[in-house]
């Protein structure tokens, strides 16, 4: 529950930065904070207190005499599998956004969003 509240607050802080700040790098920092918050929210969805990680390397985790794993001893592995790839995609998307910032700086020698007014109407 604590992790749920913390991740929600992280998402809000990131969203605030992305909405209010005028510096392009600050906006992207806000987006990356939001990314961390979303990942933590998804991970904390699958966490059940007192259970172990979904790596079955001990005989005690099986039901007796079978190859079936005892479900009541392991946390949910599905959110972890989803977040695992999301982090790697996140770094690639952040790098892409930053390269756009570098290109924009090379045009106007500025990374303040107020200096880019050509598309304003």
């Amino acid at each position, binding site marked *: 529950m*604590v*992790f749920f509240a*913390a991740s929600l*607050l*992280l998402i809000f*802080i*990131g969203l*605030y*930065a992305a909405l209010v*700040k*005028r*510096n392009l*790098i*600050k906006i*992207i*920092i*806000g987006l*990356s*904070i939001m990314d*961390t918050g979303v*990942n*933590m929210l998804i*991970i*904390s969805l*699958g*966490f059940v207190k007192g*259970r*172990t*990680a*979904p*790596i079955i390397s001990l005989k005690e985790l099986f039901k007796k005499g079978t190859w079936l794993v005892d479900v009541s001893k392991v*946390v949910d592995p599905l959110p*972890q599998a989803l*977040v*695992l790839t999301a*982090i*790697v995609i*996140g*770094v690639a998307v*952040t*790098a892409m956004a*930053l390269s756009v*910032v*570098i290109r924009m*700086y090379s045009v106007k020698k500025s*990374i*303040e969003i107020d200096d880019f007014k050509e598309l304003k109407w």
Partner: protein
Amino acid sequence: MAELLQYFMLFLIVLMLALALFAVKTKDLLSAVIASGFISLVASIVYLYLQAPDVAMTEAAIGAGITTLIFVITVRKTKGKEK
């Protein structure tokens, strides 16, 4: 012992939120970048508590290492100072 671990997690969460606020509020872009890298590092410890060692590994290598480097390169290339 378990109680101590829970208080430690609470401390880490408060640290994360404080770092996020600092990264949003500060005028110096390099400090903001380092703070956002630190958030990722703390988050990887929290993932370890949440029984997700795979995700903790990825977050520590990518969030604290590669993302921070990419941000630092961009700040250096754009000579950034927030107005």
